[in-house]
């Protein structure tokens, strides 16, 4: 047979492509469940990181079960729309943030750390090259940030990708998203600068667009929770936290 004829070449290429496609489809099909599970466990470990728990992936599932006491979906008015924890966990934030804030379904994960409730809010936004996302946990006063964690898909290593470092993320602890009962979110500013009426963290030098992306993401995602957070602040159960708030107000008035 003439191996250099057009017919032979054509048939050879076609058969090869069909065999390869079948093999890849088979591999993908047989490993899909395991991969999906890995993605879920990775998400659990990220949520845990936002309440300062660093657990290896192998333990993330168990630690998540112990720490996260409930998860549910709320709407922009702060009303619970679904108590289904699995639904709240699986909700695709990348689709929710495209909707107007009033129509979004908003997941809240409640964690119990040393007997104290923390409210974890998922974040999703745009960096320079691709999506960035993260989780921010608030104290039960609905105002003070307990911790935050960020991830990204393809930010520049050494510049924008620095948002995943502890140095950047640790700055968020103790900041306030409300100032004098007004929702202000947090600013991400060039090191040394201060914002009016707003708590701020230092941006990544050289990662300006990514830092701005974090700021926009925080405002966009947290503002949808304004009603919910105000509800938490009004709750009488957290006396200590309210006292803190009053002290701060007193400071401001001085």
């Amino acid at each position, binding site marked *: 047979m003439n191996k250099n004829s057009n017919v032979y070449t054509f048939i050879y290429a076609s058969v090869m492509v069909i065999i390869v496609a079948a093999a*890849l489809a088979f591999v993908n099909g047989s490993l899909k469940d395991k991969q999906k599970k890995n993605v879920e466990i990775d998400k659990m470990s990220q949520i845990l990181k936002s309440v300062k728990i660093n657990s290896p*992936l192998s333990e993330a599932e168990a630690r998540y079960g112990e720490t996260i006491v409930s998860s549910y979906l709320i709407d922009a008015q702060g009303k619970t729309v679904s108590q289904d924890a699995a639904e709240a966990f699986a909700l695709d934030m990348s689709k929710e943030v495209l909707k107007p804030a009033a129509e979004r379904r908003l997941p809240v994960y409640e964690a119990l750390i040393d007997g104290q409730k923390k409210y974890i809010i998922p974040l999703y936004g745009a960096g320079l090259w691709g999506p960035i996302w993260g989780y921010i946990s608030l104290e039960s006063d609905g105002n003070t940030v307990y911790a935050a964690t960020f991830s990204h898909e393809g930010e520049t290593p050494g510049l924008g990708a620095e948002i995943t470092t502890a140095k950047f993320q640790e700055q968020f602890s103790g900041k306030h998203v409300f100032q004098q009962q007004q929702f202000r979110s947090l600013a991400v500013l060039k090191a040394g600068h201060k914002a009016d009426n707003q708590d701020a963290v230092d941006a990544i030098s050289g990662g300006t667009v990514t830092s701005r992306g974090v700021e926009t993401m925080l405002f966009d995602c947290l503002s949808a929770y304004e009603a919910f957070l105000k509800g938490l602040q009004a709750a009488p159960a957290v006396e200590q936290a309210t006292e803190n708030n009053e002290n701060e107000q007193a400071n401001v008035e001085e």
Partner: protein
Amino acid sequence: MSPERKDILFGPLSKNNPVIVLVLGICSALAVTAQLKPALVMGVSVTVVVAFSNVIISLLRNTIPSRIRIIVQLVVVAALVIIVEQILKAYAYEVWGQLSVYIGLIITNCILMGRLEAFALGNGPFDSFLDGIGNGLGYTAILVIVAFFRELLGSGALLGFHIIPQSFYDAGYMNNGLMIMPPMALIVVGCIIWVHRSINKDLQEK
């Protein structure tokens, strides 16, 4: 094992090393060597892919139409790389996360195309398998040496465990941040080539 076969298997570890003698696969040697663990995983992945693609191409070598042989090689390599990636994603998710971009880059690793064109198209499957394993190990060896120095001097650790004692840091020792940057991989590779050539005088160009 015959001396020729031994040479096929062990030659690439030193005299025919793909990285420091043939200067193939340099880009990935820069990219994944900031730490030992990804370097090892990359080395093992490349070894597996180059060995099996060598065998497959060697088995097919008498049927492949010469006009599309490069395309056939690329399809075989790409298919194997995707399979490796899927398996890593299912069974070694953290490693997959670290390597994600570089796994895809195995397809363009010059070692693969180089061995397929230069060896597998003209030799039997078993010899080709040995050649693939040998070249993969030669590549891994260089990656591991580079990653050893970069992780030790850049992060003070090996495989993620801190090696340099705290008392050194207290006495003023600092990790060299430059070692983490890609240019230092190139310089370390250069130093390895220097040492290697001064031992193997016959490799020196006149």
